[in-house]
């Protein structure tokens, strides 16, 4: 299955009905219906996985991180008050888990984990390899960014979240988010230039 960025990891602002559905599912979980949490996982697993992948850099670690995020969400369900969208609350857990776990670890960057997209099947193997290597360079450069800049860049570029939602997730102001995003982009360019 292939998806473009807009489908795979873009939650945008959750619609009112989606927010209500999530709240109903959370209430069901708290009343003892564990299968309601299975539905929550199914609805949010892609965005959580993609978030974790941006920080982990490889499939195995991303999978472990994503599972940890959902477990922490399950344990802390009673603290979800419904003041924000459930996806925002889940993102907050995810960003904290990722920043705490991968902050000082050596990343196992993979160069060939770009999915084969049907429309690129005609792409030459060497071009695909170069594209994979370039992607790995970008990920390695992003991994060197300070935590807040990295979080702002990942959430804005790869999850297309609006700045006010990012501010809610990382617990800061919209101005601070934009400033971190500014520095992230500027530093990313410098890092890639120095690597090349």
């Amino acid at each position, binding site marked *: 299955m292939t998806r473009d960025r807009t489908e795979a990891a873009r939650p945008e602002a959750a619609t009112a009905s989606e927010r209500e559905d999530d709240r109903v599912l959370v209430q069901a979980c708290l009343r*003892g219906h564990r299968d309601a949490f299975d539905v929550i996982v199914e609805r949010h*697993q892609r965005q959580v996985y993609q978030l974790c992948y941006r920080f982990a850099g490889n499939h195995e670690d991303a*999978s472990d991180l994503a599972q940890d995020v959902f477990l922490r969400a*399950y344990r802390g369900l009673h603290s979800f008050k419904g003041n924000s969208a459930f996806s925002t609350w889940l993102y907050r857990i995810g960003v904290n888990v990722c920043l705490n776990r991968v902050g000082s670890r050596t990343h196992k960057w993979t160069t060939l984990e770009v999915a084969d997209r049907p429309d690129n099947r005609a792409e030459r193997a060497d071009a695909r390899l170069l594209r994979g290597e370039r992607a790995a360079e970008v990920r390695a450069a992003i991994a060197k960014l300070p935590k807040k800049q990295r979080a702002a860049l990942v959430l804005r570029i790869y999850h297309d979240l609006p700045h006010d939602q990012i501010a809610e997730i990382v617990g800061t102001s919209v101005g601070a988010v934009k400033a971190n995003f500014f520095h992230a982009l500027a530093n990313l360019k410098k890092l890639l230039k120095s690597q090349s």
Partner: protein
Amino acid sequence: MKHLSRIELVDLIESSPTLSADRLRHFETCAKCRAEAEALRDGRTAALEDGDAEPSPLFWNHFAARVAQAVRNEPAPVAATSWLRAPVITWATTASIVLLAIGITVWRTTLHAPAPTAPIVRQAPTPDVALASPASLPDDVDADEAWAVVRAAAVNLNWDDVHAAGISAHPGDVENVAQELSADERDELARLLDEDRKRNGV
């Protein structure tokens, strides 16, 4: 005119309609601001070169099953307000613990308070307040009916349970309680302290 701020540059490259016409005019004529915006666009383009790493389609079923299994091993989450639905007996027990803790805190801390260094001056009761004379108050606390209720409620209580419930004395509690005593109550407290000192040979 000042150069565009970091926030304004971010809004510009994201085509956010927040910049005023003046700021846009500055940008069009300022080489420094245009160079900064170009650098930001380059950074964004570079970031987009890392496409989505989509795992195998089979991954999602396997992942969901993994999480479901891990969740089954967890204790069920409980709503923060579930204690409101507890039976009446739990409320009664909680209320008893609270009353008992207050009584024990005042009784124990006052009986073990250091002996006063100066004689206690007893004030005559004010004539416009109807007060019971000290002689009408019980001499023996064990004979006090109210205290008997507290003792009965506490007979099977564990002090650790009380602490675990978050009920404990805090610094200043004794002073706060003492300030709320009436003049007669302070007289009686002083009498009890005197008696205790004499009994213990202090």
